[in-house]
């Protein structure tokens, strides 16, 4: 920055700069402000440049020395000022003096900081670290499972969290008033009584409605994986949450068999937990699959020897699966899904529980509290 007032470097004392405050002919306000501005800029620049004790002392003397320091010179300036300008000049000199003292003190603290032993750094001091954000353990787990399915040729699909009764139940072969609906602990949206049952809104209790939406959107062959939030009427405690996450997969083609279901999920488990794990399939009941199977994976934490995590059983329940029920295809027959010609399998798993098992988290509420002491461990 150019300047109409110049701080003159005095040629004395070798390389040590000594500045002189120029005498003013003109005590007008712009002239005073200009001088104050220049001094402030120079002060800040020098203060920031101080690197060690020695430099700091020179800096301090330049500005505060009784003999020739800038503050002394400023006092001289005040003395020389005409009477009518004394008030204005005095005000500025006081402001400047305070600023100089503050800057010198700050530079002193900097210069004597523990990292600054002369020009030698204490390299064992901690570095200046910028915090990294942490991926949420549920999102992370979800992404990992999705990645396994993507590598097997599955596309990602999604659907709304508020669903109609039709997509959440009816199209998935849960007839109205069927006891199987009881197991879903459904949360209903209020004020739907006047609508026909199939149009009533519920919070989806599983990600399975996305199966129907995906089949309506594209004809077979189809391979999709759908991660997402689901809600059920479960009071929050260490192992329950009214909101949790599921991941669903669906494969439909003209030649899918029960063995394909087993092989695919076995592959998924090996990709997720390591090639030494085994899988086991146990008959179960889900209205939208038949045959239906619970999927178990040999405990990857203890090598199936039995531990606290697998409750000494050597096995961990992963989720539900099965061959797509013909009634489900029937619901989307008009979209190219003839149950006599195509077959498929579906699989669904809870992500939250998986993440809790994986990191030995005993209270799934921790996932939803936003406590940075919890979250930052996953960075």
């Amino acid at each position, binding site marked *: 920055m*150019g300047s109409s007032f110049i701080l003159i470097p005095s040629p004395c004392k070798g390389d040590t700069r000594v500045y002189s405050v120029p005498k003013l002919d003109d005590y007008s306000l712009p002239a005073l*402000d*200009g001088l104050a*501005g220049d001094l402030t800029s120079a002060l800040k620049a020098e203060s920031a440049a101080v690197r060690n004790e020695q430099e700091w002392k020179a800096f301090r003397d330049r500005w505060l020395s009784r003999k020739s320091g800038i503050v002394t010179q400023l006092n001289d300036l005040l003395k020389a000022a005409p009477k009518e300008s004394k008030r204005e000049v005095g005000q500025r000199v006081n*402001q400047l003096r305070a600023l100089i003292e503050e800057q010198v003190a700050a530079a002193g603290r900097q210069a004597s*900081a*523990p990292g600054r032993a002369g020009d030698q750094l204490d390299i064992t*001091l901690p570095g*200046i670290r*910028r*915090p*990294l*954000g942490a991926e*949420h353990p549920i*999102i992370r787990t979800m992404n990992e499972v999705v990645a396994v399915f993507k590598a097997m*040729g*599955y*596309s990602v699909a*999604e659907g709304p969290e*508020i669903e109609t009764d039709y997509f959440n139940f009816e199209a998935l072969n849960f007839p109205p*008033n069927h*006891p*199987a609906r*009881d197991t879903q602990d459904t*949360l*209903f*949206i*209020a*004020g739907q009584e006047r*609508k026909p049952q199939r149009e009533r*809104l519920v*919070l989806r209790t599983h990600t399975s409605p996305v199966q129907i939406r995906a089949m309506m959107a594209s004809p077979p062959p189809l*391979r999709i994986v759908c991660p997402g*939030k689901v*809600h059920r*009427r479960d009071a929050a405690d260490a192992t329950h949450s*009214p909101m949790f996450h599921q991941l669903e997969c669906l*494969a439909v*083609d003209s030649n899918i*068999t029960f*063995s*394909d279901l087993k*092989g*695919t999920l076995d*592959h998924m488990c090996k990709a997720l937990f390591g090639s030494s794990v085994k899988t086991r*399939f146990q*008959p*179960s*009941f889900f209205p939208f699959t*038949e*045959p239906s199977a619970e999927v178990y994976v040999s405990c990857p934490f203890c090598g199936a020897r039995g531990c606290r995590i697998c409750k000494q059983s050597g096995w961990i329940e992963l989720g539900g699966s099965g*061959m797509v029920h*013909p009634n489900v295809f029937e619901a989307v027959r008009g979209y190219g899904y003839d149950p006599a010609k195509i*077959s498929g399998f579906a699989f669904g798993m809870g992500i939250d529980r998986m993440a809790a098992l994986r990191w030995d988290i005993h209270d799934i509420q921790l996932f*939803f509290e*936003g*406590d*940075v*002491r919890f*979250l930052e461990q996953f960075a």
Partner: protein
Amino acid sequence: MKLLPSWLREFVDVPADDQALARDLTRAGINIEGISCEREHTVFEAEITTNRPDAMNHYGVAREAAAIYDAELKALSAEAPPSSAAAGPGRVRIEIQDAEGCARYTARIIRGIRIGPSPEHIRRRLELLGSSSISNIVDASNYTLQEMGHPTHAFDLDRLAGGRILVRRARKGETLKTLDGVERKLEPEDVVIADAEKPVALAGIMGGSNSMITPETRNVLVESAWFDPAPVRRTARRLGMHTDASHRFERGADWGGTALACARVAKLIVETGGGELDGDEIDVVARQVGGATVKLWESEIRRILGGAITDPEVPRILQRLGFAVKVNLDESASYAVKVPTWRLDVEQQIDLIEELARIYGYDRFPDTLPSFAGAVVELPAAKADSVARSTLLALGYSETISMSFISAEAARQFSAAGLAVVQNPVNDEASAMRTSLVPGMLAMLERNLNRGNATARLFEMGHVFELIGDRTDERPMLCIGATGDAMPQSVHQPARPYSFFDLKGDIEALLGRFELGRVECELPDSSSPAGWLQPGRSARIVADGAALGQFGEVRPGALPELKMRQAVYVAELNLQRLYERGLRKIRFQEPSRYPAIERDFSFIFPPSVHFNEVRSAIDAVRIPELRGFAPIEIFRGGAITAGAYSLLLRATFQSNERTLRDQDVADWSVQITAALEKLGGTLRSQ
């Protein structure tokens, strides 16, 4: 439910110990979750899926074992004790008026019984199964339920007015005090058992106390009926009742088993309470249920299961489960399978295929991977989502997930549209679907501060919900929240508190990854429903005229229930609108090989001039060589008129074609100075 393996073994010879039996049942779908030992008896804890009411008893599970081990299932005797010659079936008239609610009603009458305790072996079994022994008559019914699964009920015959049983719908205004002592208001949708005058039982759910067995009872009527699942379920739900009987009828009882159950109960009553049967069974059939024939094709078995299950195994497995199988029905080598009345869950071919698969053993099927021809399709927002997420993570924000439910008040505060309210919320305080991520974020920030985490940087990506007429609007939103230090105190530097401009800068960095034209910060819309931001310390983000969101310092008391110990900053952005713009395209420019020249300008501006006007004025000068233009310092007070401020601006000039001359820079400086003076600025120094 509990099962005694010793009882199972009375019906089938199991070639395995209890542990192996439990494992094998589980692998066939009868999930034995626990094995315990009580008073030297092994007790299984079984979890039977809702589709298998037929397996909610010992005989049903024994049938499964028979199929698993290919062993003989011993028949249950339906033979009743002899009846007195004098009696005849005309004594009690039974009429089913409601054939929809009741398909069959079988009854037996026993006279001259004596109420007392059950014999030891019955009491012990019931107690091991977790049901307490009450009296010989009641126990006979419970024991039979455990044995073969059909619910029965015993009435005190002398308390049935008019000596008749009528199965009908309840009349408006009728009431019935059920056995649990509760006075029930009945509705015309309820199926009841009535005598000549009044309801005496809620069909398939619970008996009435007006006809219950008492110590004085001498004559009883044993009811063994088939009630339709739908009305039983409807009534039980409305009245909040759930009984052993309703549990089974709701899921589908055995229409063909009513006579057997009736005979088993009668036999037990006579054995344990004396008395004599009065005449034969009375069996009224309103309609037939179950027993359909399902066709099964070999090709279909192969299509779904592959080729693992061989021909002879198909009839063997099904017959052991009680299906009647006719082989080689026609040239396609099919089977005609008659479904037993206890298997109402089996309606079509696929149901039979599941039976084959589970008894054959899921683990015996080979593992294969399907071949697939098709492309992997990404969600339209997948890339944008991942870019937004990774940018925020890199900026030091941790991702959080908060509940979808917030209080209705908070939901209303953030939305002028209709709320999606949960009819049966888990928590009445949080009954609305969130209309904004802000309340959840504020709660999380408050929680951190209350727990002594003075610095937090969080973000959440999730849906917000509105109900507009019949339509739900579900939008993805992003919420960023921060409090505490932007830089912690250390030996290297003093602490620097997080500020409005930290948040703004991070939002700029995020938006910079998207293809946005002009992004501006505007004062928040005073009519916006938010009101949660501090006026003068918050802004609305507008990109090319469309509002993307808002951010700033949160107004103290923004949500009445939250008390923040320190300033918190929150932003909420509409991700849909952001993603619509697409990711920023990379437009490569050759870096200049010529030196850049910097020039500083110090201006005093009146308070009315904001920086965006300074920026626009300089943009309007259109100097292609002006590569950068940044405010370096702002100074207020001192010599500067109150309100006005001094702004130090640094311009960087550079050309890709040549080294700039002093004269070029001087000319541009004049243009810039003129533009800023026109805006009301005063050049301090040059």
